[in-house]
């Protein structure tokens, strides 16, 4: 009896050994996914990680949707001509009823910090990889440029935000509070200084579209300008101009055709490419007026968002060539009726499929540099018909508009003092850079937002006034709830 029992147990053991031998272990690594244990080892790995950091720019929380919502639709430039039930959140952006629970805020916050993670991963891992020293420096410069851009948006949207400059664990994240805006700006400036030193002036061939020295300097100038540090801004702008590689295109329309992507006027663009690869730009479909069918965009839906306001339409001077290139007051439907539904025209292409077009998004272009330079010079000192006037008029002339001068007989073209020049720059920036995510930031930066927005709301008969606290957005509710150390922006 016992003998049999022993035999039986022996049998089970033999089977067990067979099992272990034949069937293999219980350690299985993912086959279809890259596994972090064996990544970030080679130059290619790092290159791919840097590429991924650029891809963040196309996320919904950044240029694909959120930025035009928060930088254009928040301002007097655009709104949504169509509101469905589920788009109420969109109306709250331009109605100034934005609540912390608005999911667009959350998207923006998450996508920006995810972008920062992609940059931090590269910076944390790159020194452990054998790599050409120049290339290593360039990669660092690229991701520090992108990280600075992320933080620049974050501080302008939310004020104080947690400053994360390396990969952090969830435990560390729970303990983190909001970092003072000053400190965040300090980091932004350091990153951009580094980027300006380590990035090339230009690229050729397959690398076109990556961050350049000029892009870093230009954004840095904008950072200084935002902080009203005019001397530093001036210096950086002069460095950009001094690079000698940028100029205005002769025809404003060329900025928006596909043959002139990454042109000499461009300092930095979000790169898009259609074709079902997930890299297409969504703007043609998003901005097309509702019910326009295929009359405006040949393929895909019509989103009716970011539509120019009547006030925007009126902002163009008579004869401004840019107006018809930038927007349309409506469209003619298939039956030949004119439908007065305004839409942005800068990003119109034939999509490959819905939301999949080729148009790049201009983040920074030379006209912006020139206008910033004009603004800086005027802030430092108003000089009647000085260099600042030349810069302003250079931009105006391309648009087919006459010079503005200090003594012009036409009062509309006369700019007599520093304050008037400020307004002239503001006006020129509005029409030159319309629908490129500058307007709201410009109004806030020049402390004109309350005055401008409230006067326009008054004209429209909207009773309540915008408050100071609405110049910042509320910290997203989910973020507040995940971290009790956070204090909400006042007023929300």
């Amino acid at each position, binding site marked *: 009896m016992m003998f*049999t029992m022993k035999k*039986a*147990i022996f049998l089970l053991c033999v*089977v067990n050994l067979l*099992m272990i031998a034949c*069937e*293999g272990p*219980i*350690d299985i*690594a*993912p*086959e279809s*996914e*890259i*596994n*972090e244990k064996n*990544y970030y080892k080679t130059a290619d*790995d790092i290159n791919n990680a*840097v590429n*991924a950091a650029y*891809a963040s720019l196309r996320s919904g929380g950044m240029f694909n949707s959120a930025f035009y919502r928060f930088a254009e639709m928040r301002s007097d430039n655009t709104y949504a001509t*169509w*509101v*469905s039930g*589920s788009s109420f959140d969109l109306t709250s952006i331009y109605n100034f009823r934005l*609540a912390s*629970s608005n999911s667009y805020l*959350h998207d923006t916050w998450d996508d920006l*910090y*995810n972008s920062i*993670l*992609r940059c931090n991963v590269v910076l944390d891992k790159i020194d452990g990889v054998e790599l050409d020293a120049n290339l290593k420096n360039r990669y660092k410069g690229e991701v520090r440029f992108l990280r600075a851009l992320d933080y620049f948006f974050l501080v302008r949207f939310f004020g104080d935000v947690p400053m*994360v400059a390396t*990969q*952090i664990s*969830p435990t560390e994240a729970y303990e983190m509070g909001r970092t003072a805006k000053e400190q965040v700006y300090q980091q932004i400036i350091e990153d951009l200084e580094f980027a300006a030193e380590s990035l090339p002036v230009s690229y050729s*061939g397959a690398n*076109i*579209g990556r961050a350049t020295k000029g892009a870093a300097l230009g954004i840095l100038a904008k950072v200084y300008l935002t902080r009203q540090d005019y001397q530093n801004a001036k210096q950086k702008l002069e460095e950009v101009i001094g690079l000698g590689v940028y100029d205005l295109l002769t025809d404003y329309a060329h900025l928006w055709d*596909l043959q002139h*992507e*990454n042109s000499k006027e461009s300092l930095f663009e979000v*790169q*898009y*490419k259609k*074709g*079902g690869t*997930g*890299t297409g730009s969504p703007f043609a479909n998003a901005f097309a007026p509702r019910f326009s*069918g*295929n009359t405006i965009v040949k*393929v*895909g839906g019509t989103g009716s968002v970011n539509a120019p306001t009547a006030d925007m339409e009126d902002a163009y001077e008579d004869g401004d060539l840019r107006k018809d290139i930038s927007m349309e007051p409506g469209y003619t439907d298939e039956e030949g009726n004119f439908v007065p539904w305004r839409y942005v025209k800068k990003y119109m292409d034939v999509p490959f*499929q*819905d939301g999949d077009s080729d148009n790049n998004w201009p983040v920074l272009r030379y006209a912006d540099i020139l206008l910033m330079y004009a603004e800086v010079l005027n802030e430092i000192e108003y000089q009647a018909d000085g260099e600042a006037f030349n810069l302003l008029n250079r931009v105006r002339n391309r648009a087919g508009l006459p010079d503005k001068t200090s003594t012009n007989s036409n009062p509309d073209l006369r700019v007599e003092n520093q304050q008037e020049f400020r307004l002239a720059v503001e006006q020129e920036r509005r029409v030159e850079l319309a629908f490129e995510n500058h307007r709201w930031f410009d109004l806030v930066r020049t402390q004109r937002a309350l005055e401008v927005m409230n006067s326009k709301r008054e004209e429209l008969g909207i009773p309540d006034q915008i408050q100071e606290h609405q110049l910042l957005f509320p910290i997203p*509710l*989910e*973020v507040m*709830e*995940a971290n009790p150390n956070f204090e909400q922006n006042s007023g929300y």
Partner: protein
Amino acid sequence: MMMGKKILSIQLSEFFGLLLLMLSINASAVFAQNPQDIFVDLGENEQKFTNLGDKDGYSHKLMKMIHLEEGKKPLEKALQDIADQAELELSYSEQLIPLDKKVNVRPSTVTVKQALWNVLRGTSLRFGVSASGQLFFFERLKEKPTNQLETVSGTVTEAASGEALPGVNVVIKGTTTGASTDTDGSYSMNVKSLQDTLLFSFIGYQTMEVPINGRTVIDVQLTSQAIMGEEMVVVAYGTQRKNDITGSISRVSSEKIQQVQEQPITNFIEGLSGQVAGVHVQETGHAPGEGGIMVRIRGTGSISAGNSPLYVVDGFPLEDEGDVNMINPNNIESIEVLKDASATAIYGSRGNNGVVLITTRKGHSGDTKIEISAYTGIQQVERRPEMLNTQEYVEWFKDAHNNAWIQAGGEADDPNSERTETYYMIPEEFNDPSTLPNTNWGDEIFRTVPIQNYQAQISGGTETSRYLVSGSYTDQQGIVIGTDHKKMNIRTNVSGTVADRLEMGLNMTASYSKSNQVENGKYGPVELSLVVPPIYPSWDADEDWYGSPLTTSLWDGDDPSPVESALEIDDVTKNYRTLWQGYVDWELTQHLNFKTSLGGFFSQNRNSFYQPSFVNVDSNPAPNPVEAESSTSSSANWLWENTLSYNQQFNKHSIDAVAGVTYQAQRSEFNGLEATNFPNDQVHTLNAGQVTDGYSSVSEFSLMSYLARVNYTYDSRYLLTTTIRADGSSRFGDNNKWGFFPSISVGWRLSEEGFIQDIESISELKIRSSFGYTGNNAIPNYGSIGTLSTVNSVFGSGSGSVITGVSPQTISNPNLSWEKARQYDIGLEVGLFEDRIFFEADYYNTITNDLLLFVPIPTITGYNSQLQNIGEVENKGLEFDLNTRNIQGNFNWQTNLNISFNKNTVLSTGPNNQPIFASSPNVPNGFVTMVGEPIANYYGYDFIGVFQTQEDLENYPHLSTDGLGDPIIRDVNGDGVINTGDRTIIGNNQPDFTFGINNNFEYNNFDLSVQMTGSYGGEVFTTSSRFTKWYHGDRNARKNAVNRYRSPEEPGDGHYFIANRLYEGLQKEPSSYWVQDGSYLRVRNITLGYNFSQISNLPFQSGRIYLSVRNAYTFTNYFGFDPEVSTAGTGLTRGGDYTGYPPARVFTLGFNISI
């Protein structure tokens, strides 16, 4: 040997249950007997022993010397003592033996044979020993003088094994004349007429009625029968006597399974609803075929890892609960639900959520048996919400647009020309609504349609081999247009004794199903039928136009036509599934078996989708780019199991043990293509279009396990079970590869104790208790490993080139481990009056810790969540199950009542006990899981009424934008201001209790069963309310919205607030306004049947026809199609109803015949 065990177990357990019954049946016979009538016929018996080829030498055991102790004891006890000492298994029919009779035993040392004669003195019983070692008894009948009697003879065998059945009672129906079978199962008796009917009965077997029909030789096979409370129960890796079980196991009786088989359902799990205490079945979708079902055994133990039980088909654990669909309900022999740790710990890291064991039917030795059944039915939607008609809608629309315009500074009577945006304007047509269509979209998308089901089965076998082959076909049209389901199923079970002590078997299932689906939820036709206004035609033949709101400028909604999206979009899923199981069972010795089994489960799921260019889709009027997709997922799951089982009885000790090693591994592959740019809509396969995306992925896991269980029973009174399993899983982190899951349980059958035995009314009384650890490994295959994903970037001159990038996707967690549950259970089983009343109660307490949780982490890390082991959840509850046979006789009435209470409490959510917020689509942070509360509370504002008067506005804190007609929001924190701080808990989906009430009636050949199930105290977060209870994007509203606030003169019902195209307050935020009571009582099924079996001269052996109605009626206050339906069913967001496929009421007519 197997048969012997079965008989024995039934005998022992049946003893008390049938004591009184026997008294009443046999009393007259027993007491009338003259002690002198004892007839000894040993010589004849001994002759037969030799003839049987008595290989184990059992007959010699009759010559063994044993010692009898003095005393007066019941006959059964005396016989048991002798059998124990003789090492024989006791087997007898209660109808034969007067078990209660007390006998005087004199002290003596005698042979077994002499001892038996001593004890049996005073009865007409004789005894013998069978080839398998059973001590059996039969009765010597006195010869009666008869006139012209005919003789009928034959053999009775056990259907499953083909072995002869000695001791079977054979009587002529309607008389007491009869005989019993002898050792080789043969009988011979005289009958008055060859037109009589014989009744064959034997305890533990189904009684058979056989009309003689002129024959003189009648051979019969008896099939073993399970009797309530007295049955063999399938447990993990084996079977066990129900009475010996110390864990909490619910068996779904064969009657219940048969009732389920007759119902028009394609997944038998639906049929379990309300049938088993502690098992909550919630049907989350009723689409034909693969509808959603959520099964929770004893509450929700996990927050985000799976909460579904493990399904085990004939020993094969299925990885995906949906695969259980492959099993044809008609193939099921029994279902056991394992609920506590004692029963489930042997499944280790998969045992936390309970285990459902499914045993399929097998063939039995004997004549070939053919069974055919079919039903056909008519289905219609069970209940439908009522919406506004055109007249009411137009008023609603005008109100909303006017109120928005007034809010923007205008006047209600301003013409459109003065209104600045379309969403303030009122279309011309609305001034005379009678010119507009009045479409009831519900009428357009629901239909009354048939369902059909056909089944055939052939089974049988010889002494050494058994087989069963079955096939079925189901054709179900969906009650929503554009949906249907077809399913075919084949199952074959064969087994045979291939050599001495070696049994082999093979089970094979293949199933194929094909479903046409429509989308569920917000963009599905069912939800669209609620929200699309009645002002559009369903089809306009002149315009060739589906009344899609998207293609008209009457309003600027974003919804397409429900009819168009249901009919014109192809969405076809095909499932192919096969399960193969082969085994070899080697009987090493009489007590020791080695079994090795190899199983493979292979499945393939094919989906093809085509959305034509002319279809309007959400927000986008046609034409749209064609969207087409074709995808395939396939998986192969292998299982190799080796077990050693041992059972032995020494005197009063009984041991039953099993030990084993198993290895299970799965590889799943998924690939698909997407295409667009089709030249036209004629060809829908992807070759016609331009492929835009392709994907392919592989995922694997493996599980290696060691397991053991010992059951020990002393004298059928004291019971002990202990189990252990060690699981090693590829899913867990490097630091935690192996887990150990022990359990122990004890039971005490008080009914076996003398002091209880004297109480006649108590037939069964058992107390049992268990404690153990189980686990839950239902996490993603590579959850512990940080992964990276590829993302495309664009660089380069011209329009650029696409370049690959790689970004972090998830964070590693090398400490990741299984969830651990510690479970206590205490149970009581009481049978009264021969088990006419059988009551079972359980109290349990389960604490699950180390919860596997995708913890939302601060997104400043760059990640949204990390899979961690944190937190603790408690489930405790009470379960009651009561079975009563209320009336017995010509008219029978049985009732089953089961009720389960479960309380779910989160004890911890991690180091800081941070509340965990969760969102479902359009319900931002609408769910919270926090300490001291059940999982997934609904979270939001509490709407307590409507500002109907200026006074209300002064009395309640409110938003600056609030005015008359806006909702009153409870100032939860009492600070006088309404803001995010006033959000609070506003409900939970988990019911206080669920119950089932089942009644069965029988009268003559008629039977009637009525099943009712119910749930009380759960709430539903009706996200559909987000569209239909307030003015939302020009959508239609519930009928009750006519009672809304309109003006100070018409303040409404105080619930529905003012209509406004552009609300400025918190109306759109998650609130109690969306929460509804989800309690219900559902008349799940009513079946009326008629049995032909007792009618002679039929061309078949037995037959039955029935009429039934499923989902007859639901009593509930819930608005919406179904209070059970929850389209967002995961742990953290449980209970959100985004409108799933509604249930059907089905009238069926069916029959079963057996040839």
